[in-house]
């Protein structure tokens, strides 16, 4: 019996041991999966790292966002004046720190409706450049008043907020330029006035920020350069895209010869709205009583008073430089900044008024081709004011091509010699960017997920990263102001302006005279 009992307990204990062992096995059964996960993770990380290394060997672009602006805005207060307070003039004032109270009202309202709308918040964060506006000039009374109201908004307030004193309104721009309480002027008049006003401002010793294009005619271009240089003023041309971080990266990539032999550069304008085609609204209250028509005409050929011509001046050669001066110049300046183009050897052009048959004289569809035989590439510009098809801005090399926008993407060319081995080995996928850069991202990454790429392309990713969205026009004005304070040259200085103006004029002459135009670099002349 006792033996039996012992046997029983032995049996039981061995059974319970078995049960315990089975318990443990069942409890821990899925742990090996975790081991497999860790192994897989390690392998994948290694694979990605090697891939990235393999690509980075070729790219070798550092992962640091470029430092662009100095930070010396805290110097002496600079007293500015503004000539031209239309919509562009007012947005320049806004970028300088002076916003019309109604805009603040509107931003606040929109922010209430849509929490993602951060314009008001961002504007309050915009750096104070320590400026004061002492003079405002516009030939249209209503715009002049709006300019004054914006300029007096020292605390970035909405309607009913506490405003400062309104600056003096000058009826005649020459009087503003003669004022001794103004150090620097922003010129945002129509194209036909840019050169004349810049020359006179320089002669009065005022620093100048001028809207593009620098000039309206070829002869005045030389005079502007002379006046700016002789009077030693700080001149900045309004190509605010100069401040775009991705352009700095693009320049770096070009320097490192990532694209191989560059042979074609394609830049475009794609717009499709009346506003985009310069058919602006004409205010009901506008008329000969509140517009100084004679002063508006200035150097342009005489024409009877016309509201259309006054508000939609970009549509007439009499006041405008057309697509070439108004929109191509931005594209050219971007490429000049990235590639150091200089003035091309020759230009041809074609196009016409194909959609907006509203009495305009400037074309709404335009092609221009510029040759750079020394560099062995062409620069092609194509514009339509009646199609939104986005064609971007592309630099094409034998080994890779680069799309430059707010962000930057480099794709390897399927026929590349340099990357052939990596293409064959499947290390580089030509359908995905080999390199992409989005301003504001913490880190530059050669490989990112497809989703991330997608959003980066739409400029969605960095909007709230780091909490700040930066206005390039503000940075461009800040660049100018900083240079006035420390006596250096801004990014889009007079030499850049000369190249911009001459290139645009070559395109315009080629179109208007229907001939191939050449640049004589010895004589510095268009022939």
């Amino acid at each position, binding site marked *: 019996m006792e033996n039996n009992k012992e046997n029983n307990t032995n049996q039981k204990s061995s059974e319970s041991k078995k049960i315990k062992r089975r318990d443990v096995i069942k409890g821990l059964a899925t742990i090996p999966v975790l081991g497999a*996960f860790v192994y897989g993770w390690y392998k994948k*990380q290694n694979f990605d790292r090697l891939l990235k290394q393999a690509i980075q060997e070729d790219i070798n672009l550092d992962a640091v966002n470029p430092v662009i602006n100095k930070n010396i805005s805290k110097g002496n207060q600079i007293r500015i004046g503004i000539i031209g307070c239309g919509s562009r003039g007012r947005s320049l004032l806004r970028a300088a720190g002076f916003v019309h109270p109604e805009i603040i009202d509107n931003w606040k309202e929109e922010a209430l409706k849509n929490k*993602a709308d951060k314009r008001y918040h961002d504007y309050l964060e915009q750096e104070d450049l320590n400026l004061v506006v002492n003079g405002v000039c516009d030939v249209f009374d209503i715009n002049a008043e709006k300019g004054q109201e914006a300029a007096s908004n020292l605390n970035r307030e909405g309607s009913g907020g506490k405003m400062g004193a309104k600056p003096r309104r000058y009826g005649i721009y020459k009087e503003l330029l003669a004022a001794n309480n103004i150090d620097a002027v922003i010129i945002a008049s129509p194209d036909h006035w840019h050169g004349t006003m810049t020359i006179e401002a320089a002669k009065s010793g005022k620093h100048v920020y001028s809207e593009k294009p620098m000039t309206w005619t070829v002869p005045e271009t030389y005079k502007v350069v002379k006046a700016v240089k002789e009077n030693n003023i700080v001149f900045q041309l309004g190509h605010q895209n100069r401040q775009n971080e991705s352009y700095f990266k693009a320049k770096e990539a070009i320097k490192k010869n990532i694209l191989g032999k560059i042979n074609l550069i394609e830049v475009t304008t794609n717009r499709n709205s009346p506003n985009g085609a310069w058919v602006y609204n004409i205010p009901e209250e506008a008329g000969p009583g509140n517009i100084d028509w004679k002063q508006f005409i200035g150097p342009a050929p005489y024409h009877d008073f016309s509201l259309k011509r006054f508000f939609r001046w970009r549509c007439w050669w009499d006041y405008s430089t057309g697509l070439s001066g108004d929109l191509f110049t931005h594209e050219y300046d971007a490429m000049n900044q990235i590639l150091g183009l200089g003035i091309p050897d020759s230009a041809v052009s074609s196009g016409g008024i194909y959609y907006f048959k509203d009495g305009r004289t400037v074309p709404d569809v335009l092609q221009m081709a510029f040759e750079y035989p020394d560099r062995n590439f062409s620069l092609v510009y194509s514009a339509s004011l009646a199609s939104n098809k986005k064609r971007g801005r592309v630099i094409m090399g034998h080994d890779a091509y680069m799309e430059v926008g707010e962000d930057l993407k480099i794709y390897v060319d399927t026929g590349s010699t340099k990357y052939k081995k990596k293409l064959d080995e499947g290390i580089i996928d030509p359908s995905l960017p080999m390199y992409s850069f989005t301003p504001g991202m913490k880190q530059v990454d050669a490989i990112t997920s497809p*989703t991330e790429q*997608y*959003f980066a392309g739409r400029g*969605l990713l960095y909007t709230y*990263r780091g*909490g700040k969205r930066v206005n390039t026009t503000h940075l461009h004005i800040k660049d100018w102001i900083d240079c006035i304070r420390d006596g250096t040259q801004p990014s889009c200085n007079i030499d850049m302006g000369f190249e911009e103006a001459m290139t645009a004029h070559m395109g315009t002459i080629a179109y208007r005279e229907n001939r191939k135009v050449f640049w004589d670099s010895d004589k510095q002349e268009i022939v």
Partner: protein
Amino acid sequence: MKSIKKITYSTTQLTWLVALRVLIGWYFLYEGMVKLTNPNWSGVAYLLDSEGFLKGFYISLASNPFILKTVDFLNIWGLITIGLGLILGAFSRIAIIAGIILMGLYYFSHPPFIGLKYSLPMEGSYLFVNKILIELAALVVLFVFPTSKEIGLDRFIFSNKKK
């Protein structure tokens, strides 16, 4: 729910239920780890791309940097802990419930309803039902047919209760 605990499975049933649990766990864990190790990752774009009747809610999450940071943190660590919970069978009930909630939040951020369009490209074609909804349903199945007290650490964690 009490009756659920008494379910006894055949070996095949148990094997495939555990396989489903582990596979979903793996999927969660990897998604979480990828987000954790990518310094540029943020849910901001996904949130801003939201549509449907909860659009306002998701966008408000994205508009405040502090809330966004919290959402990103919860999302990453939610995915990782849920994944671990499912694979190991540890605190599976909580992991499954959390997973269902998370999938619900994903689903209603980008519901595949008629007429809604997203910037985020879809890798398939969906009407009302998408992979997220199926994953959500699979988690509900796992909730109804629990396995972690059979195969998983819950066998030890909840051993007293079991007896």
